[in-house]
């Protein structure tokens, strides 16, 4: 069985007090509790503070480009669908630069777990607005305040019939750990948006601000009711729901591919002798 010691990675270069630390802890604990060994999964990440995540834990890692986590994760998963594949991204990374890929990853429903560290700001590039920054928020780059409306990842997920849509909070690591486990056990694409205070650049959405607003979705709530889920996904402001907002049992993309019914692509050997058949067709 793995222990927390097995998950000790490099020393994080995040600011003291950053919400990312708690997310890292919840993640490592969730893995240990689920008995998953570091070599049994791959984390794909992009660029940003959040994207450094896989270096600070232990796992197979493809730390690629800003916004491009999901295509890489999809490629890995299609090549080896016996591997657990996760993507870790910032809100800028995933909802900004990588927006198009998110739409299509949800549509494909590849069995990839996406954890978005949503600090509602661009951390690594020092505080510009992100797609989830509140309307009107002033930053160095948006001196008149943000004009665009605030992206709502939960409503987006429900609208696209995403197979697992959940919200966690870095200040509530026990609850977050539970969500991470649920996401990993879910069959299908999982979007977990994690509220993550950025102590350096986000002076609005602080631990205090969240503390006064977040609440756990009641146990009776049925996340499979899409209309109710849509209603719940729109809650933001005085009350912010944490938990699984929406879930369905859509078939996964991998399930549909005939070529990998028997075994993952990566385990299939190549037989050159079959080439003769392909050649024959040209006569």
């Amino acid at each position, binding site marked *: 069985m793995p222990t927390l010691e097995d998950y000790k990675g*490099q020393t994080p270069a995040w600011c003291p007090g950053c919400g990312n630390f708690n997310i890292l802890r919840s993640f490592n604990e969730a893995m240990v509790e689920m008995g998953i060994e*570091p070599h049994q999964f791959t984390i794909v990440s992009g660029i940003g503070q959040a994207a450094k995540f896989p270096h600070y834990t232990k796992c197979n890692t493809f730390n690629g480009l800003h916004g*491009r986590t999901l295509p890489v994760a999809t490629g890995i998963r299609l090549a080896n669908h016996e591997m657990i594949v996760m993507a870790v991204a910032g809100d800028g990374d995933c909802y900004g630069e990588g927006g198009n890929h998110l739409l299509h990853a949800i549509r494909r429903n590849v069995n990839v777990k996406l954890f978005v560290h949503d600090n509602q700001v661009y951390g690594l590039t020092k505080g510009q607005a992100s797609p989830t920054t509140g309307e009107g928020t002033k930053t160095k780059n948006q001196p008149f305040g943000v004009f665009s409306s605030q992206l709502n990842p939960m409503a987006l997920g429900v609208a696209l019939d995403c197979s697992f849509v959940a919200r966690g909070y870095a200040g509530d690591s026990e609850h977050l750990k539970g969500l991470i486990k649920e996401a990993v056990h879910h069959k299908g694409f999982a979007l977990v948006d994690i509220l993550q205070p950025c102590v350096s650049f986000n002076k609005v959405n602080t631990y205090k601000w969240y503390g006064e607003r977040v609440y756990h979705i009641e146990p009776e709530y049925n996340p499979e009711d899409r209309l109710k889920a849509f209603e719940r996904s729109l809650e933001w402001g005085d009350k912010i729901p944490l938990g699984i907002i929406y879930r369905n049992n859509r078939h996964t993309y991998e399930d549909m591919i005939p070529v990998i019914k028997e075994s993952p*692509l990566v385990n*299939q050997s*190549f037989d050159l002798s079959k080439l003769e058949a*392909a050649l024959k067709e040209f006569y």
Partner: protein
Amino acid sequence: MDYTIKIGGEAGQGIQTIGGSLAKALSRSGYHVFTHQDYESRVRGGHNFYQIRFSDKPVSAIREKVDILVAFDTESILRHETELTVNGIIIYDSSFHKQKHNEPYFLDVPFSDLALEHGGNKIMLNTAATGAVLGMLGIETEILIGLIKEDFRTKGDEIISGNIKAAAAGHEYTKNKCAKCSFTITEPSNKKMLINGTEAIGLGAIASGCKFYSAYPMTPATGIMNYIADKEEEYGIIVEQAEDEISAINMALGASFAGVRAMTGTSGGGFALMQEGVSLAGMTETPIVIALGQRPGPATGLPTRTEQADLLFLLHSGHGEFPKIVFAPGTPEQAFYLTNKAFELSEKYQVPAFVITDQYLADTQWTYDSFASDKIKYVDRRLRGDELTKLPEYRRHAFTDSGISPLAVPGASRHLVVTDSDEHDEDGHITENAETRNKMVEKRLFKKMPLIREEISPPLLYGDKEPDILLVGWGSTYGVIKEVVDILSNEKRIAMLHFSEIYPFPLEKKLNYLSLLNNSKLAICIENNATCQFARLIKAETGYIFFENEIKKYDGRPFTLDGLLGEVNAHIRRL
């Protein structure tokens, strides 16, 4: 014997169907065939043509003169009438056109009536027309009948027999009514394979064990995706249509990282989007093969036409400094073997490898006796199974003498496989350490480049071994330059120097091409672009300058044999 058949009409009229079956009937009969298509970027209407040149000797270019023109609309007659040879004939169905043509070189063949009367459906007029062309040439219909049986296999006996009757009716009609037909056909020989550049790349990929192909459709690269997708089940391949080209290259890199051979393909605009991914392959040392089908730019340019104008863009693709491998096949045969070599070297050196073609090579069909599958190389260089499990430790980017680190399959052992687009240490973890950065650049670039360069074959010298006149080309101009050399070598000491492996630029020790260039009286660089990009590459790599000796074409159309011959002769006359 050297005849050209041109079938002209609007998009949607079945030009391709007729051209396709005629070409196949001729190649099956054992003739050498070369086909070329010209189409507009539209699904219906416009003017399209399909051109078939066939001979009892190898042919590798298009001619301007036409022996049989099958005209499906008036436009085809207006445009191509002047291209007829002395004995050339136009066949048409006067019911399609507003007028009847009385000149002796016109033959009115009621394709549509013949199809309805004999086949039972007007739709079969394409088959009647195909039969009619064979009738004019005096070629029997057995092979065509065989093709009909194969093509309509799934459509039922009624459709098959209808088409066979329509073909026979067309054949009978021209055989009896074409008084002016005086084609002399040599005896058929052993049947040949007929393949175009696109299929050859797809086939090369399959032969190399490619298991993952992701792309976003863009002419002229779409055909590679279609070809491989058709073989998915048979060969255990996943073809994924990505949401854009950025995704396409990143998906392929993901699949390659996970342990399978992966490829993507696109054209200029899509390739522009892939730049960051090319660089990512360079940094993470992830093998990938990328097919670049050129078409005229800038921007969307002429979507269905041809040009060789992305060479320098490709050579400089991706930001930062890292090695890449670039092949530019000149024929479908080269496309097949070079795609295999691209997979081989890409995996051996863990660098991106490119196969650059263009619309012209993509679509032209050539005939061959066969491709030798025993010349295909396949070595799985990835660490997996016991070999990996038994390693005491593993570091994805470990420093080695050769610069090549072991490439392990993640998840296949307890060893973690870590890589990063940031500069990284031997374990694959982010670092900004200056010393490590230096060592990584040395490993990726300085150590690998000379090794890769040793693998590159020299250019092909075809013709006179000590030529006075040297025609230099790269990529798809191979066929037409070769035929120019064939024609002129009766009177001149002339040769072609053709480059199909162009980066890293070939070493001179295997063929001293520089002395050939320097010793010739006239060396001409021939390119399908406006700025002589290859001439600039030669200058950059060797210092050799062509001065004004360049023949270029940038109207979106390929060189024709007659056209290029005229231009080469003009240069020779100035000597």
